[in-house]
């Protein structure tokens, strides 16, 4: 009898060690697409990769911070996050009164997001990977020409305070991924490769064709308009920013 209790105790104890649950991932099948903002008009090839089904939640980030003291609100280095970092939290280990533990974590910097993913044995998705996975509707991997899907995305961008919603309540796309649209914006590993911010107009040498005006005017469909909003947002932020409507999810390469 003692042995039974002992085995059960050991088994239970082993689960306590893994309270910080890692989000389930789905495979995004390789393919080529033409991003709104790419290297050339030929499009980019995205190899197979894994992507988190949901954005990282407040609870998951809290569990992470408890173990990783350098990302506590009171300890974080200014180099890696400005004053808005975890702005709504009560303190280092308690979420704000209005925060839901199953909502997406926001008010986190790029550096924090990057380290979180690294600690899960994952990484941030690249911008091309993120955009590629975000083209999928419920039924199709590439819904760029589906006007109903595209107007739904635009409408979802117009809703206020969607960061307060819980993850996993929006539609599940072709790959089994939730919340790519209409919950929060998401960090990508190379977000700062978008050279369309104010200063880039005068300072950047070779970018002449993607300025606010030309990109939106030439946008041929609504998908481009939605994508333009995302690229413009990425072009306007810095890695130490912590924004209320900006969260992240992790990705992983598939070893060949």
């Amino acid at each position, binding site marked *: 009898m003692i*042995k*039974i209790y*002992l*085995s*059960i105790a*050991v*088994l239970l*104890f*082993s*689960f306590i*060690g*893994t309270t*910080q649950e890692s989000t389930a991932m789905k495979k995004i099948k390789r393919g080529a697409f033409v991003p709104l903002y790419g*290297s*050339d008009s030929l499009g980019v090839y995205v190899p197979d990769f894994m992507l988190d089904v949901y954005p990282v939640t407040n609870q998951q980030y809290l569990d*992470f911070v408890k*173990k*990783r*003291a*350098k990302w506590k609100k009171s300890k974080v*280095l*200014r*180099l*890696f996050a400005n004053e808005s970092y975890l702005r709504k939290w009560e303190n280092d280990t308690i979420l704000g009164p209005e925060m839901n533990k199953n909502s997406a974590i926001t008010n986190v910097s*790029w*550096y924090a997001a*990057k*380290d979180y993913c*690294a*600690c899960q044995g994952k990484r941030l998705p690249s911008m091309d990977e993120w955009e590629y996975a975000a083209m999928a509707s419920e039924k199709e991997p590439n819904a760029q020409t589906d006007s109903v899907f595209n107007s739904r995305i635009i409408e979802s961008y117009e809703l206020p305070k969607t960061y307060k919603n819980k993850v996993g309540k929006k539609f599940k796309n072709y790959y089994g991924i939730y919340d790519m649209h209409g919950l929060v914006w998401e960090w990508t*590993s*190379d977000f*700062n*490769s*978008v*050279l369309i*911010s104010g*200063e*880039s107009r*005068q*300072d*950047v*040498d*070779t*970018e002449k064709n993607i300025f606010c005006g030309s990109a939106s005017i030439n946008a041929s469909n609504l998908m481009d308009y939605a994508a333009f909003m995302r690229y413009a947002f990425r*072009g306007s932020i*810095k*890695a*130490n920013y912590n924004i209320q409507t900006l969260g992240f999810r992790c990705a992983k390469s598939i070893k060949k």
Partner: protein
Amino acid sequence: MKSIFSRITLIGVVLFIFSFLMNSCSENIQSTEQVYQCPMDCEEGKTYSDNRGCPICKMDLQLKDKYSKVLADEGKIESASIFNLTSKWETQNNETIELKDLKGEVLVMVMVYTSCQAACPRLVADMRNISKKVDSKEVRYVLVSIDPEVDTPEVLKAFAIENEMDSEEWIFLQGSIDDVREFSNVLAVKYKQISPIDFSHSNIISVFDMAGVLFHQQEGLGVDNDETVSKIVELSN
């Protein structure tokens, strides 16, 4: 029956060990136990659990925390300093360094790539013009490559020689793709590979004080560098 339970125990133990492996990012929580050490460190690192006095120099022992804090303060890095970065870089002279190895110098930094035909030669010229005007030995001019796959230490060395930037104050750095991306974010430099050989990038020269904190940024090509020069002179004196 017996074997089933021992099997469950075994699975539990394996899971338990595994859970520790999974938590490799956890940081050790420091023990709250008080540890005393001689302030002169007469016994080279020996510690005591109470303040009994140093048996060698007879001085009162100090709490080790306090003692190590004094040491840490000397090497303290400011919260906004780039010396907090732990990335490793190869120089044009094949040395591996961390940014904090550059502590104590005023740093003037720019991101370029050596095969660049358009903006970089002008940016490099801007750097050289600044260095001529400043003319101080306490300034280091650091060029970080955004194309680390091509810009090996050998390529960087050749570039340095060709551009008469081979003296001590010029440092060329090659890092991993990931670390270069991180560093570009520290400098608020944007860049994107637009073809196999070309990058688009912002033209920003950044000045850091001796503690590694950003002090000034000059944006654009061939702009009037008087302000940047005066900021560097201000820091290096």
